């Protein structure tokens, strides 16, 4: 996709050793930055001031909603009604959080959004495990064994990832209703498996494409069959891509709204659905602080995942988004 580059020689000029290694796996290591500025005089040029100004302004724009979310969630409603969405809380309070977690009304019950949290957990864990397994087996079979017709199937799978889910949703609903599992935990897990398979398969296939084919051939000469090679050779080597896949699938499943809305059933509604119910369907006064607390709670898991594993997150994006 991008022009190939070689590893720069040790003595290549212009490589500040403090640059963070940020590139995803499919791409080679960080190449030397172009040496463009001669900073003999330590005074920064107007160009560099401009660069930092632009980036700082953009950063403010990106951070604004997060700031407002956090700040609002710690204010009592009186303060919010007085206005000043950007002001820090004067009367700092944790009450909105308590209410969001265990007090707000989500449809019939008024037990807070914690029910949705546990639902999301119960949906995400099996969805992720199954999807990773499926992706790994598919990627392995596609990379090394390439049975006839597999390429075409993979093509259809990938194409399906781009198609809006509304094209497939009604028939899936009917089939699940006929099978009697519509509106249950197995239904939503199965649906996440179906729609998560393209990206998972792509991740693993691209990863295994980077494994030298000779390794596989040596294992076959040693007498290994399909499953043995997979379980004893390939899967143990796959830890990096499993981490990336887990991050992507957990984020995708946790943040999903529409599939949870349709397939999960009233007892298993994920946090995103309950959040929307809380905020957009209340009658009477809107409790903005509780709403923001609930929103943060819902976004907390993927955000935390992102902040703690930024490097792997970026690898996932590049490896999954770069289709071949």
């Amino acid at each position, binding site marked *: 996709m991008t022009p190939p580059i070689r590893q720069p020689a040790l*003595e290549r000029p212009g490589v500040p050793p403090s640059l963070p290694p940020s590139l995803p796996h499919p791409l080679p290591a960080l190449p030397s930055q172009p040496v463009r500025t001669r900073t003999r005089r330590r005074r920064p040029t107007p160009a560099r001031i401009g660069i930092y100004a632009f980036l700082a302004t953009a950063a403010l724009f990106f951070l604004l909603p997060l700031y407002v979310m956090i700040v609002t969630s710690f204010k009592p409603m009186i303060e919010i009604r007085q206005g000043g969405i950007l002001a820090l809380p004067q009367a700092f309070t944790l009450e909105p959080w308590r209410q969001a977690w265990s007090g707000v009304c989500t449809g019939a019950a008024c037990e807070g959004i914690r029910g949705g949290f546990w639902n999301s957990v119960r949906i995400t864990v099996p969805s992720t495990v199954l999807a990773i397994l499926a992706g790994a087996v598919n990627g392995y079979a596609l990379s090394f064994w390439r049975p006839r017709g597999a390429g075409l199937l993979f093509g259809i799978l990938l194409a399906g990832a781009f198609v809006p889910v509304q094209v497939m949703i009604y028939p899936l609903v009917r089939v699940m209703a006929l099978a009697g599992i519509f509106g249950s935990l197995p239904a939503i897990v199965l649906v996440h498996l179906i729609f998560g398979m393209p990206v998972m398969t792509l991740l693993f296939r691209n990863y295994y494409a980077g494994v030298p084919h000779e390794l596989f051939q040596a294992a076959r000469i040693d007498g290994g069959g399909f499953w043995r090679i997979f379980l004893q050779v390939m899967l143990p080597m796959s830890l990096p891509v499993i981490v990336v896949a887990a991050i992507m699938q957990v984020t995708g499943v946790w943040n999903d709204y529409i599939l949870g809305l349709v397939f999960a059933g009233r007892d298993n509604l994920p946090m995103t659905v309950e959040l929307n119910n809380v905020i957009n369907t209340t009658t009477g006064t809107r409790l903005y602080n509780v709403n923001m607390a609930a929103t943060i709670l819902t976004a907390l898991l993927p955000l935390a995942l992102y902040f703690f594993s930024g490097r792997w997150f970026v690898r996932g994006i590049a490896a999954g988004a770069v289709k071949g």
Partner: protein
Amino acid sequence: MANVHLRKLNIELGGKAIIRDLDLEVEPGEFVVLLGPSGCGKSTLLHSIAGLVEMASGAIEIGGRDMSEADPSERGIGMVFQSYALYPTMTVEANMSFGLRIAGTPKAEIRRRVARAAGMLQLDALLGRKPAQLSGGQRQRVAIGRALVREARVFLFDEPLSNLDAKLRAELRRELKLLHQALGSTMIYVTHDQVEAMTLASRIVVMEKGRIQQIGTPAEVYERPANRFVAGFLGAPAMNFIDGMLDAAGRFQGGAIGLALPAGTAGRATGPAVLGVRPEHVAIRADGPLRGTVALVEPMGNHQVVWLRCGADTLGALVHDARVFAPGDEVGFAIDAARVSLFDPRGGARL
């Protein structure tokens, strides 16, 4: 055609000193090769002459003018990179003329220069192609052409042949030498390949760890290496080294090897010394004063390398005739005492 003068050059990268207190004078029209192993600083030095890397202190003069602070495009240099660095979305013609167009050179002049460079490098038929459609050797010629059209006074080459296969490398090496003869420009060339250095250079600058080890013509550097590093770096197969003692009478004894040295070989030095002798100066003769056992034979087509074990030492010997040796054979051999070098065991300097 201009000279290049480096004075007390110091270059640091990431806090580490890469080049220390370096002085170098390149005369106009010379072909100077910076030769050394990976990490010795030769590429960094070249980049600082080009202005792509800052120096911590020192001065760089090109053509008699101080260029220490000048922008790379103002130094009157052309540069050829190891990876060719051709602009992939432009044709060969556009690649060569892009810099000139930016500088506002009149169109007629651009055409003249491109035609001249293309003619010298046999690129006329390829002017409309893009880099992806060219072979490695053709791409390298385009990279050279791009430097040529700048009509620079000094040309810098950063390991330009490393990406080519052996046969192509030899071909382009010869073309580069012919180019230098035709143009007569000053050329500074970086490589780790001593064959390239020996064949192309008018003078070789051998570098290690940021310091110049020796400057001299290929013959000088080869026959009278200034220290053990230079002696071991040039020549293939490498020079043989034997540890031993030098006595006051000018005789060297190391293990089972004893040699009387011509007067003046080691000055007035006595004591521990390292004897260096090149394989081509070790002659296997039945009547040779020394005796050894054949350990290994490497046939090379037009010559053989025979490895002899003599006491605790192993020596390589070059044999140019068709004699057959088998491992285990006992043979006699002689060392040409007039062509040896002696080195101080501490520090490696020539005695």
